[in-house]
């Protein structure tokens, strides 16, 4: 995704340029006709671009449901209602915060700097917009907002099954209102990283790694689930309650990713743009497919069984990996990028357990590690990028996201506490704060 401010220019360059030319040379009828015509093309481009934002936006919005289902399937029944509530709550809070302050903090007047302005996003009246704007302001806000919400969705899975609800929501408000917009402003807002030449097309770093860093900071400060690591260091598997829901969630995310990456072309009004969006669809799909196949084969080789949850993670890791550069890689390179993403999952999931970092859904391997991989591999196919700049981007954004998240988590820990008590954790989070069990009839209290 290019900086929003640049996009405007990009999307309507042709229209404006030609209009300008036409203004200079208005001496012949055909010229005039052409001028009007290009203006009309500008109209059409405006509608196409807006449509891309709206379609891309609703597909990414749908990813909120994907995260909800994936996480509902990966936690134990006693925490499923809570996980659902956190997911619909975080999506709602992200939307409100990104209007109140997030959007403008990310896009308004960044000018090569470190942040925008602390103001709510204003939307012009529909009839006040013109072809030269390139797209409807509200469609852009909507599209950018769902990216912001995605960042928060990533966090909820990692720290599931032990984190208190309201402190989590406060964290989400700060993440989506302040932290994500600030790192976002550095690149997509046209800040210092963008000026330096960092490249992150649809957000392997800006969205996925930022979410991953916030999740990692949370996992470290909140600690592992009580019964996850035995005293003698053994890992105790705590299998998720519903594999079909986890599968459904993954398919939803995969579908949504076409909006995530395809929409990040930010324009669809020309043949080249439409063609680019199409290539993005193809590469995105194949990277995900390669992530699945790589994860399945490696699982078979390493464990002699194919863990469904790892295969699902493999799809997502393939998707995250290709997100930093879904357009430029050739098809075989896209497949390779995705496959490495899948491999990362197979090895990183048990590694994290060895480090006693308890990540319920695998968001850290999928979003953080594959996000770094995807960002670092961009120079292989994208002109004008360099490994050094990519590295600077990954590290600086990572450092800020991790430290800022860490501070917020820490302050919350001191102020309100972050964990439920051990008893509440044993009984399940649904009892304490939600009061509604996910499956009251199935082998749970409530039926009898």
């Amino acid at each position: 995704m290019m900086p929003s401010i640049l996009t405007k220019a990009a999307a309507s360059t042709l229209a404006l340029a030609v209009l300008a030319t036409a203004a200079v040379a208005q001496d012949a009828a055909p010229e005039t006709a052409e001028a009007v015509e290009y203006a009309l093309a500008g109209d059409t481009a405006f509608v196409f671009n807006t449509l891309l934002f709206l379609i891309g936006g609703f597909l990414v919005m749908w990813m909120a449901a994907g995260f909800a289902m994936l996480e509902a399937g990966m936690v134990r029944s006693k925490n499923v209602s809570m996980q659902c509530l956190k997911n619909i709550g975080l999506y709602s809070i992200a939307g409100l915060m990104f209007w109140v302050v997030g959007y403008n903090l990310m896009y308004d007047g960044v000018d090569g700097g470190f942040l925008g302005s602390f103001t709510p996003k204003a939307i012009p009246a529909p009839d006040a917009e013109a072809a030269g704007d390139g797209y409807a302001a509200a469609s852009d806000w909507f599209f950018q907002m769902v990216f912001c919400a995605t960042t928060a969705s990533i966090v909820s899975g990692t720290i599931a099954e032990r984190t208190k609800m309201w402190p989590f929501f406060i964290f989400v408000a700060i993440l989506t209102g302040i932290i994500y917009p600030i790192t976002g402003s550095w690149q997509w807002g046209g800040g210092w990283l963008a000026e330096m030449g960092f490249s992150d097309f649809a957000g392997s770093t800006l969205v996925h790694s930022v979410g991953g860093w916030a999740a990692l900071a949370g996992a470290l400060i909140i600690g592992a689930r009580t019964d996850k690591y035995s005293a003698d260091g053994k890992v105790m598997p705590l299998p998720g309650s519903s594999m079909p829901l986890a599968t459904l969630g993954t398919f939803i995310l995969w579908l949504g990713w076409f909006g995530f990456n395809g929409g990040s072309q930010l324009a669809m009004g020309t043949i080249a743009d439409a063609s680019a969006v199409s290539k993005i669809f193809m590469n995105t799909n194949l990277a995900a497919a390669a992530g699945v196949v790589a994860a399945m084969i490696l699982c078979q080789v390493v464990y002699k069984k194919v863990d469904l949850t790892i295969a699902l993670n493999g799809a997502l890791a393939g998707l995250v990996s290709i997100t930093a550069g879904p357009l430029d890689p050739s098809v075989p390179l896209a497949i390779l990028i995705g496959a490495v993403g899948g491999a990362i999952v197979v090895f990183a999931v048990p590694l994290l357990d060895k480090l006693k970092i308890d990540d319920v859904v695998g968001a850290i391997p999928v979003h953080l590690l594959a996000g770094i991989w995807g960002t670092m591999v961009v120079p292989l196919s994208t002109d004008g990028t360099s490994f050094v700049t990519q590295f600077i981007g990954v590290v600086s954004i990572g450092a800020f996201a991790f430290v800022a998240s860490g501070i917020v988590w820490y302050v919350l820990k001191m102020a309100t506490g972050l964990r439920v008590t051990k008893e509440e954790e044993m009984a399940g989070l649904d009892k304490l704060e939600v009061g509604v069990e996910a499956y009251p009839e199935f082998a749970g209290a409530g039926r009898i």
Partner: protein
Amino acid sequence: MKIVMAVIKPFKLEEVRDALTALGVHGLTVTEVKGYGRQKGHTEIYRGAEYAVSFLPKIKIEVAVSADLVASAVEAIANAARTGQIGDGKIFVVPLEKAVRIRTGETDGDAL
């Protein structure tokens, strides 16, 4: 009167019921249970961590019978439930002092 309690492999339930019905026993109560025994379970793997699943799904049957039927009931269950493979299960006989049919208030022999 006795309660004959048997732990069997789940897919043997129908055969056991048929065998008991053939004996004239027309009521029984069934529970889903997990069994732990010599039959070892299997290893599952979840996100890179292996773990043993040592409790296996079994079916527990409880059937109240009059004293004279105990031996044949035990035999019928054993024959119907036997596969010869480890994990076929156990039959336990427990004394039963009183039985009541709730609907009619009939007791003991009449209640079975």
